[in-house]
């Protein structure tokens, strides 16, 4: 097969918030290309709803230190405190920069950026919720994605749209290129680069019920893994408490930020029992577990596997009055602050959320773990902090680790902007002083062989069969609650599926042009790798922390597990080590986590 070769100083893989932010900054100092399997505006950043967290203090007293502490506590103390400091400090300037790029935030009467409450964001003195989430209605991610794409057009950033990265090319331990399929004609392209940044987002499609797009198949972490590099904290995958039942799509935490409450079958506002101070605005892991426990105790609505999210004005106003607040809402206000949520409820369930409660269930949402990086987005090859020259990662795919064991709402968007910008600057600097590492001979030979194996596969198992089985077993045993026997079952199943994927795959489309049958099958291989790593990482963490709740080890164990998990590829298998220390430089000592 003919291979086309390109040369750029910097190549960014993925065109969501982190990728485009990195590209904007890198392209100011280096010849930069963005390759993305989707048109940039289709990226999953666009589905983020409620807000981007920054201590602007436009409405309430707030300080970056409070934001940093909330991030550490939200992460159940697995958050690296130097990363939380970077995030919270630079968030303020990052949000201002987005506004100056033209982002149409909602406004306060004085013209400043509007902010609202979100889970786990507090006034550190009173412990009450603080208004920190800067937003544009309930389509903040959409506005960020559009604004960044608009600015990329303005600054003439080079895009390779609908090119799917399928291999990371290294030479002597240095990253030197990326192989990608041009989806349109199936040709393989090699991008020779000095610096490469993964910004491919998450891998929520490992699970049956997810808020994530079909395209979130974890290609980035899988490529890094296959290049012989470790992945960090993969057992920590966030289940967002409020996915629309039964489809799983995201219902933003902003519904609760605006005053919505969770109600069980008995009509109780059950979060009062689990988080007496901030109730429905506790961290996501806490709320997701509470919903599971309510359902397990038979208090799901009609005995089913969901509860209600009630944002009807009469309900909101009743609880506002009970809390002694002056604020009251009406249906028009709810509609103006949550127009997309209203539309989702109408389209998928035929209900009006100002008149009926919304049925919700926890949904697989966000990977806290991923490709380990330092504070400048440089990828690490070991728990000791060794940097891989020329390799970077930012956004959900990266593990800085700023989210620790559980991410706070709004911090994903903050992460994209803050660390995407850092990656872009770092790559421009690196490209200025570094030379091109030569490509190895026949750089795409191995990956072409793998693609051709899939294209010509003639077994009996279609990719969707393997995918559905994987998604079911991950949902049953590697979701909100975990225990050893279930994890073992998941591991056995995933390994059996991997062998069927190797030996018995059936692909219908043998063509070159826009062959999504082939590419979906290839993506499934990425997901199977990550499912195995996630499950094994979860087995080896014998404690409960943040998004990782072990029924057989219900307590947090700071003596043995206040440390990051590193999964290393070794001899065709996986070696789990707990050899990356948690940074405690802000001095926040692990404490019991109550909300």
């Amino acid at each position, binding site marked *: 097969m003919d291979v086309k070769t390109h040369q750029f100083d910097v190549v960014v893989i993925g065109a969501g918030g982190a990728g485009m932010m990195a590209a904007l900054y890198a392209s100011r100092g280096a010849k930069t290309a963005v390759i993305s399997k989707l048109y940039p505006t289709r990226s999953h950043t666009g589905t983020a709803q409620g807000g981007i967290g920054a201590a602007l203090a436009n409405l309430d007293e707030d300080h970056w230190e409070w934001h940093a502490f909330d991030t550490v506590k939200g992460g159940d103390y697995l958050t690296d405190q130097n990363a939380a400091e970077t995030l919270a400090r630079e968030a303020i300037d990052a949000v201002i920069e987005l506004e100056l790029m033209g982002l149409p935030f909602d406004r306060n009467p004085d013209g400043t950026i509007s902010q609202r409450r979100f889970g786990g964001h507090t006034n550190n003195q009173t412990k009450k919720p603080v208004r920190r989430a800067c937003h544009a209605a309930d389509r903040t991610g959409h506005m960020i994605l559009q604004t960044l794409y608009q600015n990329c057009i303005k600054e003439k950033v080079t895009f390779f749209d609908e090119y799917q990265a399928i291999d990371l090319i290294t030479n002597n331990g240095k990253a030197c290129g990326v192989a990608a399929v041009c989806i349109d004609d199936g040709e393989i392209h090699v991008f020779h680069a000095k610096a490469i940044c993964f910004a491919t987002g998450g891998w929520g499609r490992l699970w049956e019920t997810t808020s994530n797009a079909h*395209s979130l198949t974890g290609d980035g972490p899988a490529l890094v893994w296959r290049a012989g590099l470790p992945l960090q904290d993969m057992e920590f995958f966030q289940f967002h408490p409020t996915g629309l039942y039964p489809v799983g799509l995201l219902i933003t935490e902003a519904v609760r930020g605006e005053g919505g409450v969770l109600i069980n079958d008995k009509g109780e506002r059950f979060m009062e029992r689990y988080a007496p101070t901030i109730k429905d605005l506790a961290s996501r892991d806490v709320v997701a577990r509470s919903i599971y426990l309510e359902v397990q105790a038979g208090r799901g609505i009609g005995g089913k596997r969901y509860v209600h999210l009630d944002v009807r004005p009469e309900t909101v106003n009743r609880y506002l009055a009970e809390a002694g607040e002056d604020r009251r809402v009406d249906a028009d206000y709810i509609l103006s602050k949550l127009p997309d949520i209203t539309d989702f409820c109408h389209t998928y369930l035929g209900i009006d959320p100002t008149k009926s409660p919304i049925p919700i269930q926890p949904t697989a949402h966000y990977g806290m773990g991923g490709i380990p990086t330092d504070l400048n987005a440089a990828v690490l090859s070991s728990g000791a902090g060794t940097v891989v020259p020329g390799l970077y990662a930012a956004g959900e795919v990266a593990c800085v680790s700023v989210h620790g064991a559980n991410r706070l709402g709004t911090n994903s968007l903050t992460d994209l902007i803050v660390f995407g910008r850092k990656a872009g600057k770092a790559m421009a600097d690196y490209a200025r002083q570094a030379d091109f590492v030569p490509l190895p001979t026949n750089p795409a030979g191995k990956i072409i062989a793998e693609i051709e194996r899939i294209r010509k596969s003639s077994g009996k198992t279609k990719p969707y069969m393997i995918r559905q089985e994987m998604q079911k077993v991950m949902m049953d045993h590697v979701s909100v609650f975990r225990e050893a026997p279930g994890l073992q079952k998941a591991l056995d199943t995933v390994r059996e599926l991997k062998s069927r994927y190797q030996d018995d795959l059936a692909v219908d489309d043998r063509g070159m042009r*826009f062959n999504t049958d082939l590419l979906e099958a290839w993506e499934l291989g990425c997901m199977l790798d990550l499912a195995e790593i996630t499950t094994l990482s979860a087995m080896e963490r014998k404690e409960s922390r943040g998004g990782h709740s072990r029924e057989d080890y219900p307590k947090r164990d700071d003596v043995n597990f206040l440390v990051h998990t590193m999964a290393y590829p070794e001899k065709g298998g996986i070696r789990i080590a707990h050899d990356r220390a948690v940074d405690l430089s802000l001095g926040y000592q692990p404490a019991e986590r109550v909300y």
Partner: protein
Amino acid sequence: MKVKFRIRRFNPEVDKKPYWGEYTLDNVEPTDRILELLHRVKWEQDGTLTLRRSCAHGVCGSDAVRINGVNKLACKVLVKTLDLKDGGQVQVEPILGLPVVKDLVVDFEPFFDHYRTVMPYFMPATPRPGDGRERRQSPEDRARFDDTTKCILCACCTTSCPSFWASGEYVGPAAIVNAHRFIFDSRDGATQERLNILSEESGVWRCRTIFNCTPACPREIEVTRAIGEVKLAIQRNGR
């Protein structure tokens, strides 16, 4: 229930001309989305069926297709809204006016080319505030262009427009919507440049106010109104 799918197929690698592929699905629920059913056809029956999709809930704009002759996002159409009897038929084809790449996938380059011509980016009217903070904007000024900020560039409007079908030179409704988003933003200073671009032959005057674009918009943007406001701004020489 049982549903029959009639899907416009064309793979230029093997087909001399397009044809209708027919597929029957059992156990269809009224709440199933058309996207899920297209996936079932692809996954269970014929892996060569090709379509774009990503978020599956109407936000990313990937899966615009013609369902029973009307432009829709496949992920936003539920079976029950199509008034089907058991064994009823759904027809799915690519959106019109853009070249077909394969099956339901069209070439988006001409669409994005038009988008890029209208300066779809912020050109600030004033320098950065000296205090290092955000530019201020009143809630009223912000509300002025709220509707057109919702656009997801799915092309449902542009490919429902007979003027666009008649001439691909026309920038089309989506590009005008995105120009409107900046023309009516009080912070922006490039109104006149955009109005000049849109008063050219390929611009707003190709719009014959047919109104196809407004019902086609899955984000419920009042597209025709936005185009009308741009026409008015050109006549007034400013917003």
